[in-house]
């Protein structure tokens, strides 16, 4: 186990070395392009490639929902994702605005200020992982960070390979969910980051029902009992008020996974994100699926409280 775990660390070292090699000549050439990005997935990828974005959208919510990598302090906040503040951008336009089809309606207007590129990993015909790799390489090409992108991709492949090895024995099917209120969850299925993880690691997704364009279905929690043997992995954070309400929720308390202590909680991760989010999710899944779940959560322990 320790031998495998040191692998990402080695890669991180390689990244550091490559970073040092590539930034030196770039500085001599010219100033790096100033990039503004509306889409959090693009923001995540930019920061992961070592670019310091000029302006990005909705930093407070990025910090709550995407979390990592952290946005540098010097980066400007340019408002909501679907309405980048043009009065702000017009005063000192960036060299490039990266946005996605979801958040833009009228790019002709924006192009009077600066070049606009639509980049994301969802509005394509390609499967998630392929699309995310293409997106990462495209961003790298635009910012002159191709070597860093290849390192990031290699690192991600290594993390996935490590996860596949670590999860080889894990036969239990698994629901990966995010609570939307105490009675409903978004359960992730095929065709997104989660689907990629399941197919690359041999984990079985317990949810086989239909999903929407973003790869999840909104379902009442009682449907999590359809596969009684399954494990439930909850992506935090909870929406407000949910944690308290789950204690009284008879369905939740009676779910086979909850009664058997097969529920795990993982740190916030952006399930529509890029390679860093994918790596974080893979690591979290390895952690919870290979270790016996610790019964540290109030909801799990309260099953005992309720037992007659």
């Amino acid at each position: 186990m320790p031998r495998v775990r040191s692998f990402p660390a080695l890669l991180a070292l390689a990244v550091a070395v490559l970073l040092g090699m590539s930034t030196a000549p770039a500085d001599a050439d010219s100033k790096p392009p100033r990039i503004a990005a509306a889409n959090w997935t693009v923001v995540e990828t930019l920061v992961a490639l070592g670019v310091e974005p000029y302006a990005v959208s909705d930093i407070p919510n990025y910090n709550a929902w995407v979390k990592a990598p952290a946005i540098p302090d010097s980066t400007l906040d340019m408002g909501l994702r679907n309405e980048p503040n043009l009065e702000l951008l017009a005063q000192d336009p960036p060299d490039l605005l990266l946005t996605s089809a979801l958040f833009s309606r009228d790019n002709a207007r924006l192009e009077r200020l600066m070049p606009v590129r639509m980049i994301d990993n969802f509005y394509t015909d390609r499967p998630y992982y392929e699309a995310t790799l293409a997106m990462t390489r495209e961003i790298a090409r635009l910012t002159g960070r191709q070597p860093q992108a290849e390192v990031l991709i290699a690192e991600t492949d290594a993390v996935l390979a490590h996860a596949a090895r670590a999860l080889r024995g894990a036969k239990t099917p698994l629901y990966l969910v995010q609570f939307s209120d105490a009675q409903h969850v978004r359960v992730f299925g095929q065709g997104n980051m989660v689907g990629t993880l399941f197919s690359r690691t041999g984990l079985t997704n317990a949810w086989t029902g239909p999903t929407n364009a973003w790869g999840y279905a909104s379902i009442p929690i009682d449907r999590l009992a359809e596969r009684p043997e399954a494990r439930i992995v909850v992506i935090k954070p909870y929406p407000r008020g949910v944690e308290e309400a789950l204690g009284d929720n008879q369905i939740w308390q009676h779910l086979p996974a909850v009664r058997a202590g097969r529920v795990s909680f993982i740190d916030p991760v952006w399930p529509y994100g890029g390679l860093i989010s994918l790596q974080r999710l893979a690591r979290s899944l390895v952690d919870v699926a290979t270790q016996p779940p610790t019964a540290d959560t109030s909801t799990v322990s309260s099953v005992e409280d309720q037992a007659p």
Partner: protein
Amino acid sequence: MTLRRRSPAWFALALLLLAVGLATATLHTRFGDLAGVWWQSIVAPDDDQIRQIVMHYTFVPRLLVALLGGAALALAGCLMQQVLRNPLASPATLGVTSGAQLALVVATLWAPSWMLAGREWIALAGGIVAMLLVFALSWKRRLAPMVVVLSGMVVGLYFSAINSALLLFHQESLSGLFIWGSGALAQDSWHDTRFLLLRLGIVVVVALLLLRPLALLDLEEEGAKSLGISLRKLRIAGLGLGIFMTACVVSAIGLIGFIGLASPAIARLSGARTLPQRLVWSMILGALLLAVTDLAVQQLSPFTASLLPTGAMTAALGAPLLLWLLPRLRVGGSRPTPSTGLTMPRLARPHLRLWALAGLTVAACALALLVGFMLDSHTLYPSVAGTGDLSLIVDWRLSRVATAAAAGLMLAIAGTLLQRMTGNPMASPEVLGISAGVAIGVIALMLLPLGIAPLSGSVMGFSGATVALLVLIVCNRRSGFAPERLLLTGIAISSLLDAMRAIVLASEDPRAQQLLSWLGGSTYYASLTSSGWIVAIALLLLALTLPLQRWLTLLPLGAPTAKALGVDVDRSRLVLLALVALLTVAATLVIGPLSFVGLMAPHMARLMGFHGARHQMLGAGLLGMLVMVTADWLGRNLFFPYQLPAGLIAALIGGVYFMWGLRRL
């Protein structure tokens, strides 16, 4: 109309059969594996059999909660309609549901620990605050029915505007409230069932005690008064009971709007005459209506990846039903307060005040163009723009200011036309459902997979408005566009939009944020070209409207008087309606359907003393521009770089003024 000795029993029986059929189907599809142990699962489930647990804690409580909630809402609506002598009264039209929802959102965001004490008490507090506000606004008019409903709708609009602003900034953390807000009935324990059963029982008992005096309200007011009844106390007691019932339902199962309005109407139409009959049949019909809708939703849900919220579906199914009922509904007894009752003394020299208003509007435009945030390397500071920033002002501020002004002008004129035409202080493009029609068209474009080039938002919006207008005309032609009928039709169309909005929001589609922003009335997408067009259209329509003063002066005197003075009433109403539609479509497409300005500006003009048709129109137009431009400026700068939609801010600032004006009546 209701001459035949019909009884609601037939309608109720049909609904009951439908409910039983659907319930059996649901049992077979969802719990077919438990066949044979259904009864055991309901009464005493095996603790180790998760399927039995699921059935015990979801299926049965959900059915009961639907029945109880429907009955409770119908009871609340019936009480409110009886007290106010107004078939338009319902928990939603009185602002109670919006108040309850806002209280819950505020508590969730800033005082989550209060939620532990119970959502229901927070919702109740919100509902009571809303109703107290409505009482305060209509107190001086001795809680006259139309003034109460008018106040209720204003309060409701105001609270939902605040609510939308909060949702805009906290979409991710409030996603649960989207689901709750659209009335999803999913249950996880017997808690809600017990909760509702107890409350409903208490309210029914109290209502029975009040039955005799309440029934006397069927007499004319004078008659009831001569019997020694304090109308004010009786109304407060009846309304209070209704609010309490509503708050209980809202806190338990969310917003379910349509039942409270429709069940009493259906009961009355199908032959329930006396108050006890109406109460009983309303409750039975309400219970069955909600249960049938919810069972139908459960049948559909396995086929979709997104959640179908029952409350919103109720409204979606109920709106056509309400439209079908309209020609059969007798809206009598409560003539609207004549519009002259809502005026301040006539001004001796309105011109002076008009010029002052124009000056103020110009000043607001200058402020909106020149003052904003400037960027210095990485710091932002508020500042007056200099000559060097001309391109910033022209490119990115002028288009928004011009769009806001044009939209404000058009909505204000549309509102003035409607209020003068119908002699009804509640008329506005929004209440008539034309804005809603535009919005339905645009949302439909978003939802349907119709990414085809020729189908732009404006085409779909225009189609929506045309359909709304056709519905208005078809439903109202025979009655000669009588004011109350027109309003009811508008409410039905608007409730369809509310339903669609709720379904989109609860579906957690990430595009919902964009929709919210447009619904709130953002000028973000205005360009110089589009604002040029919109200004030209606004001026053209203004020029078309100004020569119609004669109609606008004579129509408020009532159809017979106007006819006697030589006005072709039907034709003039049709022309004015067409103008209103054009004005509303143009304004709504750029600034969304939250056209509170259309309701507000004409009133503000009248409160300022602009009495004559032309003066009121110009005054309202200037006020509409003033409010929208100021709102747009505030929205762009209050939370820079985050932007609030102008329509939302207009509703927030205008609402305060409007309530102040109402209070002075």
